[in-house]
C-alpha cells in the first residue's frame, strides 16, 4: 500500500476517533433538554462527559492538522470552499467549549440557562453540519482544478443544502444523539438512567430508519465505484451494529449497546470513505475534475515523516486516553452532586 493510501486511512482513523468520541458527548449535550428535568439532572449529565469532552474534541484538532500536513490541497479547498459552514461549526464549538467551564462559575438561574442553551445548540450544529459536509463530498461538489495548481470550489453554502446532504446531516445528528443517550444510561444510576434508556429506544428506531436510507442512497449513487463491494460491506456492518446496539439497549446491556453504536458510527464513516476512494472530493462539474488522493497529497518525504510520528504517538495516545476513561469509570448519580453546588 502506498503512503498516500496509508494517510487516507490514518486521517480516516482520526476522523472516526473524533466522531465516535466527541460523538457521544455531542449526544449528551443534545440530551440536556430531554433528560435534564432539573438542575441536578443537568449537572449529572454534564459531569458524565466532564473529564473527557476536551480530549475527545482534541481528535478534531489533530485530524485537522493531519489533513493539513498530509493532504494540503484537500484542507485548502474544503475549508475555503465550505467557508460559512465551517464558520458556524467553529462558533458552535467555541460556545460549547466555554460553556462547560463557565456554566458552574456563577450562581443564578439565568446564567446557567444561557450556558445550557449554548451547550445544546453547540452540540446540535456541528454534527449536522459535518454530516452535510461529508455527504456532499460523496455526492460531489462543484470543484475544478485551477491553472496554477490546486482546486477551487465554485458553489455556495446553499449548494451544500441538497436532499442527500441534508439527509446526511440528520443521519449524523441522530447517530450521535443515540450514542449520547446510551452513554448516559451507561454512566449513571437511578431514574435518569432509565429515562435515557427509554429515550434511546425511540431515538434508536429513528436512527436505524434514517441511517438505512442514507446508506442505501449512498450505495445506489456509487454503483459504478470500484470499491462497491467494500462500501456495501461497511454499510452492512454499520447497519447490523446499529440494530444490535438497539437490541442490547432494549435488554439493558449498556456496555454492548455503546460499543455497537461506536462500531456503527465507525463503519458508516468507513462506507463514506470507501465511497470517496480513490478521490477526496468528487467534482459534480466533471468527473475528470475530481481531487484524487494522489493529487492532493504532500510529498513522499512529509508523508514518511508523518507516518513515523503517527506510528509512535497514536498507540501511546490511545493508551493514556484509555487510562483516563478507566480512572473515571464510575457511574454518577444525583446523590453525588454535593448540596454546595446548588
Amino acid at each position: 500500500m502506498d503512503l498516500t493510501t496509508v494517510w487516507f486511512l490514518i486521517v480516516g482513523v482520526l476522523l472516526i476517533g473524533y466522531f465516535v468520541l466527541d460523538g457521544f458527548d455531542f449526544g449528551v449535550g443534545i440530551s440536556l433538554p430531554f433528560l435534564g428535568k432539573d438542575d441536578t439532572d443537568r449537572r449529572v449529565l454534564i459531569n458524565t462527559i466532564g473529564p473527557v469532552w476536551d480530549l475527545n474534541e482534541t481528535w478534531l484538532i489533530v485530524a485537522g492538522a493531519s489533513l493539513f500536513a498530509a493532504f494540503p490541497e484537500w484542507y485548502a479547498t474544503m475549508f475555503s470552499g465550505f467557508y460559512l459552514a465551517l464558520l458556524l461549526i467553529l462558533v458552535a464549538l467555541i460556545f460549547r467549549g466555554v460553556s462547560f467551564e463557565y456554566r458552574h462559575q456563577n450562581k443564578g438561574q439565568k446564567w446557567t440557562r444561557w450556558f445550557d442553551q449554548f451547550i445544546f445548540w453547540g452540540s446540535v450544529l456541528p454534527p449536522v453540519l459535518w454530516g452535510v459536509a461529508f455527504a456532499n463530498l460523496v455526492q460531489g461538489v462543484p470543484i475544478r482544478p485551477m491553472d496554477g495548481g490546486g482546486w477551487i470550489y465554485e458553489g455556495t453554502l446553499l449548494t451544500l443544502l441538497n436532499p442527500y446532504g441534508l439527509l446526511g446531516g440528520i443521519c449524523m445528528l441522530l447517530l450521535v444523539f443515540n450514542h449520547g443517550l446510551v452513554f448516559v444510561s451507561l454512566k449513571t444510576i437511578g431514574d435518569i438512567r432509565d429515562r435515557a434508556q427509554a429515550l434511546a429506544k425511540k431515538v434508536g428506531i429513528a436512527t436505524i430508519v434514517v441511517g438505512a436510507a442514507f446508506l442505501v442512497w449512498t450505495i445506489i449513487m456509487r454503483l459504478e465505484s470500484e470499491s462497491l463491494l467494500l462500501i456495501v460491506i461497511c454499510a452492512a456492518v454499520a447497519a447490523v451494529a446499529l440494530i444490535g446496539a438497539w437490541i442490547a439497549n432494549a435488554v439493558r446491556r449498556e456496555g454492548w449497546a455503546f460499543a455497537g453504536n461506536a462500531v456503527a458510527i465507525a463503519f458508516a464513516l468507513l462506507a463514506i470513505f470507501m465511497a470517496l476512494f480513490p478521490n477526496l472530493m468528487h467534482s459534480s462539474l466533471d468527473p475528470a475534475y475530481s481531487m484524487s488522493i494522489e493529487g492532493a497529497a504532500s510529498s513522499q518525504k512529509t508523508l514518511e515523516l508523518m507516518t513515523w510520528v503517527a506510528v509512535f504517538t497514536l498507540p501511546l495516545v490511545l493508551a493514556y486516553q484509555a487510562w483516563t476513561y478507566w480512572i473515571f469509570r464510575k457511574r454518577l448519580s444525583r446523590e453525588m452532586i454535593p448540596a454546595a453546588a446548588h
Partner: protein
Amino acid sequence: MNEILDPLVLARWQFGLTTLYHFIFVPLTIGLSLLVAILQTVWVRTGKVKYLKLTKLFGKIFLINFAMGIVTGIVQEFQFGMNWSNYSRFVGDIFGAPLAMEGLIAFFFEATFIGLWIFGWDKLPKRLHLMTIWFTWIGTTVSAYFILAANAFMQNPQGFEINAEKGRAELLDIGAVLTNPIALSQFPHTIFAAIMFGGTVMVAVAAWHLKRNQYVDEMRTALRFGAWTNIVAFLGVGLTGHTLGMTMTQAQPMKMAAAEALYNNASGADASFSLFSLGTPDGAHEIFSVRIPYLLSFLSNGTFDGSVEGIRNLQSDYTAMYCSGPDTLLTCPSDGQFAPVIWITYWTFRWMIGLGALATLVSAVGLWITRKNKELPNWVWKVAIWTAPIPMLASLVGWTFTEMGRQPWIVFGVMTTEQGVSPGVPGWAVLTSLIVFTLVYGGLAVVEFKLIFKAAKAGLPEIEHLPGEGGDGTGEPDPQKLATVY
C-alpha cells in the same frame, strides 16, 4: 465599497485579531500552569495546607483561562484553510508537519492530563495527581514549540525546496525546520514572557487581598513568589530577546531596520538606538529624537562597531533580488514595496521592551519594600494590581512587531501575503466571519475577565478534607466524590 470588501485586507484583519486574541490566553496558560505546578509540588513536599489553598485558587483562574485558549486555538487552525488557502496549498507540505506533530505529540497529551488534573483530585494518589499538572505544563510547552517552529518557517524559511512542477514548496529536512534558529530563540523568549505574565497575575491577586488585609500569610507568599518569578523570567526574556534580535537581523534585516526606522546604512556610533522619536508621518525624516549611540549595533550584531543595513538600501537590494526572474509572481509585492509599516514596527518594538522592563521594575521594587512584614500604603497595592496585564501587553505588541515586520511576505522571500489569500472566497464572507469573531470574542472577553476577577476576589478556598486522602480517614481516595461539579 470594493475597498471595504477586499478579501485580502479583511483576511489580514481577521488573522491579526484572532491571533492576538488567542495570544492573550495562551501565555497565561503556559505561565500559570507552571506556577500552579510549583505550588502543588511545594504542598506535596511540605504538607503545608497554605500551598494547597494557593494551588486551588490559582488553579481555578488557570482553568477559566484555559478554556479560552483551547476554543480560540481551533479557530487558528482552521483559518489557514478558510482565508489563506493558497498559502496552505503552497506550504502545507512543510508548515502542516509541525502543526500535525503538535497535535499528535503535545496537544492530545495536554488535553488528557488537564482533564485528569481537574477531575482527579480525589481519584488519583497524591503524587500521581501532582504528575498530571506537570504533564499539562510539559504538553503546553512542547505544543508552543511546534507552533513557534511553524511560525519560524514563515519568518526564516529553511529545510525546503520549490517543486516547480507541482507549484509548491516541499519538505527537504524536518531537522532544519525544527531547529530553525528563529524558533530556537523565539521559543524561550516567548515562554519566559508567558511565565512573567503568570507571575504578575499572581502578584496582582495577592496584592488585592493584602490591600484588604485578607489571608495575609498566604498572600504574602504568593506575592513574593510571583515577584521573584518575574525577575527571573525577565532575565530570561532579555537574554533570549537579544539572541533573537541578532538572529532576526541575520534572517530579516528589513525587520530590524524597520524596528529602528533606520533609512540608511549605519555603523558604529551612528548605529544608535532611539528611545523616542518624532518624525514626518511617513517616518522618513526625523524631527526630534533621544538616542543611545552604538546600541542598535549591539542589538543587531552583539558588537558595538558593527553595521546595520537601512531601509532604502534593502529596498533596492530586494527589488533586484525578488522582482526579476521566474519566481517574481510569488515574491514581488504588487506595489514593489518591501518595507513594512514603519511606525507600527518602530513603536511596537519599543513598547515591547519598555513594558517588559516596567513590569520587572515594579516587581523588584515590590520585593524590596515587602521584605519586612510592615504596613504599606494603599498605592503600593494598587500599582501591583495594575501591573498584571503589562507582560501581556508586551507580548501582544511583540507579536504585532514580529508579524507586521514580516510583511509584505507571508513566507519571507518565498511568497507575498497577497499571494496567500484564498481565491474564490468573496469579501462579504470574510467580512461576515470578521464581524462574527469580533462580536463573539468581545463578548467572551467580558465574561472571561469577570469570571477571573470573581475567582480572584473570592480568595482562598476552605479545605474540608485533604485531597488524595479521602474524607473517611482511611487514607484511600474517595471515588464517589466529584472534584468538580458543572
